[in-house]
């Protein structure tokens, strides 16, 4: 998708182009070399001219169905075959399939005596024969300037070269002519005079003991082309040129959120984590836990089933795996599953451009959704800050264009302002986590906070985190008089709070118990009173009964006296009285 965007269509559709198949070169030439015309590739010794020319031929033969002739003036066919075998080009096989013809032209001055007029018809005959024998569409002459050292008559040579290039054009082959860089001129013998349609300059520069190969289109007649110098690298797959990704801010912004791998950190980031395809910078002092958090992020990506590319500039993969295992993050299964790929290399082994090119290449090959670079600041040890800046800008843009979420870590050295990264990329990143050591009460504790995070409501809190057996754990926040409490201070505070809580709890329980007791006492008292009352009641009743019985006795006595006095009235009154006496007794 991004590649298609980079791949501009030629501005001039009238000019036919022959694609080289070389990674990146077709992009900056807008489609390839001018078809049917010669192109001059010049550069100093060892800058990759021959290889570029060879790759042009091999790719032409294998990818575009255009057989090619390689006319070598310096190396024999065997040497060439051996040299490019390491790149996976099998010239013997191509020659057998009639896709490639190599002709080695040896011109030794000490074997040659010049005696009068001559021309280079022999060369023409050989070239023509080679072209016709395989129906070649592409031709390489490497390095035709060798003729100048073999033959002394420059006037004849120049005339013949002019004729040769004319002849190549008439023949309709797309030719690459290589030339050695001269003093102040593109080529030692002024070949640019004859080959003027397209000139590519290769350069192999060593700065601060770092070598970088660069490529520049000096001219390209009849078409627009990129004019910058582009770094390129030669590796196991041949040449790849690194087009500076168009620094136009065209990437689409994704609303998708992905987890940082640490739930409480996600909570700090608006509750959902980072935006997909955003660039996250994590800066911090030495030992502040950058790699551990990066490992969480990588593990989370793999757990989602996404591929993660991890660039380690300071530790070997084995070391990272071991160290992360110690805090409970096991990355090894992901490596085995092919979801996690480590690329570990010292920053100092290449120049910046080379790193950028390597990163590009790996990203294209591995197609990750997530990239970790740990630490990005070590790249400054390779180039100047400005260079590193430019490179990171390119890199971030490139990753964004690919929709890749990138986590960059950066080391802040102690004497620098914390809000300054080694590389000033702060304006480029979308989310910036700052890790730092808080030195207080004779301890160092790790804290982190979100310095910025574009497009989300993020936490403003300073959070302490611990590296535990289960990975990074963000701790609760305790604010003290001096700010956030960390380490022992936090633990003390936690303990105090716990004690206070316990005390309060105990008090409540005591009160509860007291209440129960009180109620029980109350109830007891009620019962006692009741009993007392009942006792009194009983006494009262007994008194009443006694009183009644006494009254009865009295009445009977009276009755008895009455009977004795008036016998006939006794039976009438005596009956009901006896009955009422009975009922009172049963009621008891």
């Amino acid at each position, binding site marked *: 998708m991004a590649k298609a965007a980079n791949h501009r269509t030629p501005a001039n559709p009238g000019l036919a182009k022959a694609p080289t198949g070389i990674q990146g070169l077709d992009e900056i030439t807008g489609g390839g070399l001018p078809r049917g015309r010669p192109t001059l590739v010049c550069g100093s010794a060892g800058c990759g001219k021959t290889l570029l020319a060879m790759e042009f031929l091999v790719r032409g033969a294998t990818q575009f169905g255009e057989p090619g002739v390689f006319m070598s003036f310096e190396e024999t066919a065997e040497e060439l075959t051996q040299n490019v075998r390491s790149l996976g080009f099998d010239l013997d096989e191509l020659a057998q399939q009639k896709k490639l013809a190599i002709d080695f032209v040896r011109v030794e001055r000490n074997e040659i005596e010049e*005696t009068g007029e001559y*021309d280079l018809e*022999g060369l023409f*005959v050989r070239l023509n*024969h080679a072209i016709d024998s395989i129906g070649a569409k592409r031709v390489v002459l490497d390095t035709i300037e060798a003729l100048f050292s073999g033959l002394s008559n420059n006037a004849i040579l120049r005339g013949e070269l002019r004729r040769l290039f004319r002849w190549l054009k008439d023949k309709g082959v797309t030719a690459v002519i290589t030339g050695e860089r001269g003093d102040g001129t593109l080529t030692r013998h002024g070949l640019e005079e004859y080959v003027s349609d397209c000139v590519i300059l290769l350069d192999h520069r060593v700065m601060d003991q770092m070598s970088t190969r660069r490529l520049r289109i000096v001219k390209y007649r009849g078409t627009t082309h990129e004019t910058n110098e582009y770094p390129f690298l030669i590796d196991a797959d041949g040449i790849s040129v690194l087009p500076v990704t168009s620094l136009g801010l065209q990437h689409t912004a994704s609303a998708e959120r992905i987890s940082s791998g640490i739930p409480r950190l996600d909570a700090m980031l608006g509750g959902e984590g980072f935006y997909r395809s955003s660039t996250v910078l994590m800066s911090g002092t030495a030992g502040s836990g950058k790699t551990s958090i990066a490992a969480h992020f990588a593990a989370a990506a793999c757990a989602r089933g996404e591929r993660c590319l991890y660039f380690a500039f300071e530790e070997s993969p084995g070391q990272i795996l071991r160290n992360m295992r110690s805090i409970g993050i096991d990355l090894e299964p992901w490596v085995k599953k092919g979801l996690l790929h480590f690329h570990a290399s010292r920053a100092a082994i290449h120049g910046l451009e080379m790193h950028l090119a390597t990163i590009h290449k790996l990203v294209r090959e591995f197609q990750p959704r997530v990239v970790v670079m740990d630490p990005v600041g070590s790249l400054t040890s390779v180039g100047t800050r400005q260079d590193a800046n430019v490179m990171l800008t390119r890199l971030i843009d490139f990753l964004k264009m690919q929709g890749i979420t990138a986590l960059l870590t950066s080391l802040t050295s102690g004497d620098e302002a914390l809000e300054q990264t080694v590389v000033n990329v702060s304006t480029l990143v979308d989310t910036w986590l700052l890790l730092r050591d808080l030195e207080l009460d004779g301890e160092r504790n790790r804290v982190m906070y979100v310095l910025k995070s574009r497009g989300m409501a993020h936490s403003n809190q300073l959070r302490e985190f611990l590296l535990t057996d289960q990975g990074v754990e963000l701790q609760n926040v305790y604010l003290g008089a001096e700010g956030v409490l960390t380490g022992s201070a936090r633990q003390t505070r936690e303990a105090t709070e716990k004690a206070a809580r316990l005390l309060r709890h105990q008090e409540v329980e005591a009160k509860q118990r007291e209440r129960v007791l009180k109620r029980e006492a109350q109830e007891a008292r009620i019962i006692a009173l009741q009993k007392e009352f009942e006792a009194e009641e009983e006494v009262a009743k007994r008194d009443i009964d006694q009183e009644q019985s006494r009254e009865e006795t009295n009445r009977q006595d009276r009755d008895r006296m009455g009977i004795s006095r008036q016998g006939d009235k006794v039976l009438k009154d005596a009956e009901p009285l006896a009955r009422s006496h009975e009922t009172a007794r049963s009621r008891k």
Partner: protein
Amino acid sequence: MNDSAKLAGQTAPLGANGETEQWELRLYIAGQTPKSVAAFANLKRLCEEHLPGRYKIEVIDLMQHPQLAAGDQIVAIPTLVRKLPEPLRRIVGDLSNTERTLVGLQLRPAKPGK
């Protein structure tokens, strides 16, 4: 001119230096150009003069046999190749400069000499 013109004298008298070895010369041309014609004429004259009876000239026209050009590493036309005696020598040009041709063929030490 034929493709292959052999002018041989097998048992020729010894040369001035007392050499008896056979000379095998090959002249590469590309079509009947004035340069080719001149080269052949010059070569023949020189051989008659300096190598009477012990030389062999083979003329190869690359227009007809282009595949032969690579074998002797022919770039310039005309080219004279001394196959024998060893070592192999190449002389390019129409051989109009007799002095240089003789030096090239090592028939004469390079300039006044001893």
